[in-house]
């Protein structure tokens, strides 16, 4: 806990106005890094970015929307497969594929969501798992079209994205743009209404909000961003396979949000980074790396129930709120 205390004290010293500069500085640093670090690390960072965006898009629906989005990987997979199929099977210009990926993911999200928002809580989640698994089964079995369990490999990328470093820049920029968009959506009236629905759907309906339609719109947005993550995965890996939309990945992304903290904006990024790092560095020594993840998760639930990021935010709030109350009382 010593390290954590030091870190919290360090964070406390940073004023609110300086946070923006810190983030911009971090972005510039990450942007300048590739030439100076080994290729392998560039790849791992890219993977962390892609996974972060996926986790953020899930957290938008789960942490801020309060929906039981149990099978989020499907929309990631749909985004990835859409761009992969367009790039390999058609002669359309590549940008069509890049746009079509998120759009397809959002449309499939709306289609599945249209059924799911009619149910509540666990039933919402169960229905989504069933409908999502259906899509997985189609992708897994339709050898002629999707390559079945082999997937599609060696997807040709446009010239500007062919090298690893170029892919890295592209992913980083799209990640930042997506995060800015998601953040402003959460701070908009749409976002605050979404969080109000999470807290109390019944009351929201009583103040004139069409809860189902609002949730469905949020699903459209969340799955669209999952689709962007799917496209970025293809940019990085240049291949797709059915595991991208298997339910175990959905669970893994769920765990990332839990690790980072549901009710914080940046938490899922941290969760994604931890998970990807564990899989990469512990996974080298043992295929049972999930065992370590499991232990971390158990410790987390006991000691930091609001997640790693949630813990720090809580520390901050404590200071901010007490000052605030003293001022107003």
């Amino acid at each position: 806990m010593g390290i954590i205390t030091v870190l919290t004290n360090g964070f406390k010293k940073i004023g609110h106005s300086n946070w923006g500069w810190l983030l911009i500085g971090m972005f510039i640093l990450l942007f300048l890094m590739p030439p100076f670090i080994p290729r392998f690390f560039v790849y791992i960072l890219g993977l962390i970015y892609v996974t972060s965006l996926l986790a953020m898009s899930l957290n938008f629906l789960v942490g801020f929307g309060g929906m039981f989005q149990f099978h989020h990987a499907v929309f990631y997979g749909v985004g990835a497969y859409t761009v992969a199929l367009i790039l390999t099977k058609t002669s359309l210009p590549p940008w069509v594929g890049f746009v079509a990926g998120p759009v397809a993911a959002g449309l499939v999200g709306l289609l599945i969501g249209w059924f799911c928002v009619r149910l509540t809580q666990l039933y919402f989640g169960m229905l989504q798992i069933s409908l999502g698994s259906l899509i997985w089964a189609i992708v897994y079995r339709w050898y002629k079209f999707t390559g079945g369990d082999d997937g599609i490999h060696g997807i040709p990328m446009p010239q500007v994205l062919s090298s690893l470093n170029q892919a890295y820049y592209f992913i980083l920029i799209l990640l930042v743009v997506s995060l800015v968009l998601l953040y402003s959506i959460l701070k908009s009236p749409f976002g605050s209404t979404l969080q109000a629905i999470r807290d109390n759907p019944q009351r929201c309906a009583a103040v004139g909000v069409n809860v189902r339609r609002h949730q469905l719109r949020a699903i459209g947005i969340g799955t669209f961003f999952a689709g962007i993550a799917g496209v970025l995965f293809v940019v990085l890996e240049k291949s797709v396979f059915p595991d991208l939309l298997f339910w175990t990945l959905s669970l893994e992304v769920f765990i990332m949000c839990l690790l980072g903290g549901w009710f914080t904006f940046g938490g899922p990024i941290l969760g994604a980074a931890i998970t990807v790092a564990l899989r990469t560095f512990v996974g080298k020594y043992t295929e049972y790396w999930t065992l370590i993840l499991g232990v971390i998760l158990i410790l987390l639930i006991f000691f930091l129930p609001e997640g790693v990021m949630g813990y720090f935010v809580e520390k901050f709030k404590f200071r901010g709120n007490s000052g605030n109350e003293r001022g107003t009382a």
Partner: protein
Amino acid sequence: MLRVEGVVKSFDDFLAVNEAHLLVQKGEIVAVIGPNGAGKTTLFNLITGQLRRDRGRILFQGEDISELPPYEVCRRGLGRSFQIVNVFHRLTVFDNVQVAVLSHQKKSNTLFHPAGSLAVVETRSLLESVGLADKGRRIVGSLSHGDQKILEIAVALGNNPEMLILDEPTAGMSPEETAATIDLIRHLAKTRGLTILFCEHDMEIVFSISHKIMVMHQGRTLLQGTPEEVRNDPQVQSAYLGGTDA
């Protein structure tokens, strides 16, 4: 303004509301009284669409609203608060009211405009009118029970309703808080021209502020009349006033 005609609602075999009748005219303060389990809350839930009636009609400003979902009822100018505190507990006091105001201004779907700069004046003046202005930045969970009940009313006012249904607005309050809340309700009714329908266990309050009182017993409307008429009715006395209630 509001007319309930022969409304029936049963849960499985239990008749929660059986032939309820109610008439609320514009500008009136009307109370629904009755022992626990008489069906008051169920009646309110039927009116504002949380539940759907089995039989009967509910007319609001001449329009049949008995098949409408809650958000449609709200959009027609009929707001409500809940008996058990029922707000957005992770949001601040300000945000709670703002969600309702944004919904009223049809801005709930605005995507790329910071919510912090929308509907601020309206929300703030609303908080001032109920006396919560200095607590705007508090998280709801940290408020006292009395303040949370007041916030209930403020959230309901966010939609600028013409009529307000209050389900036991003073439940669980201290005598001082109760007195302040009753003053507030009276003040709101006067300054905003609100029509109010409420239910309440405290007979002193009911008889002091209501223009009309409707008495429910076992889901049925016994009678509706002025406080005088209700006080002197033998049927009411035996069923309710002379009975178990303190």
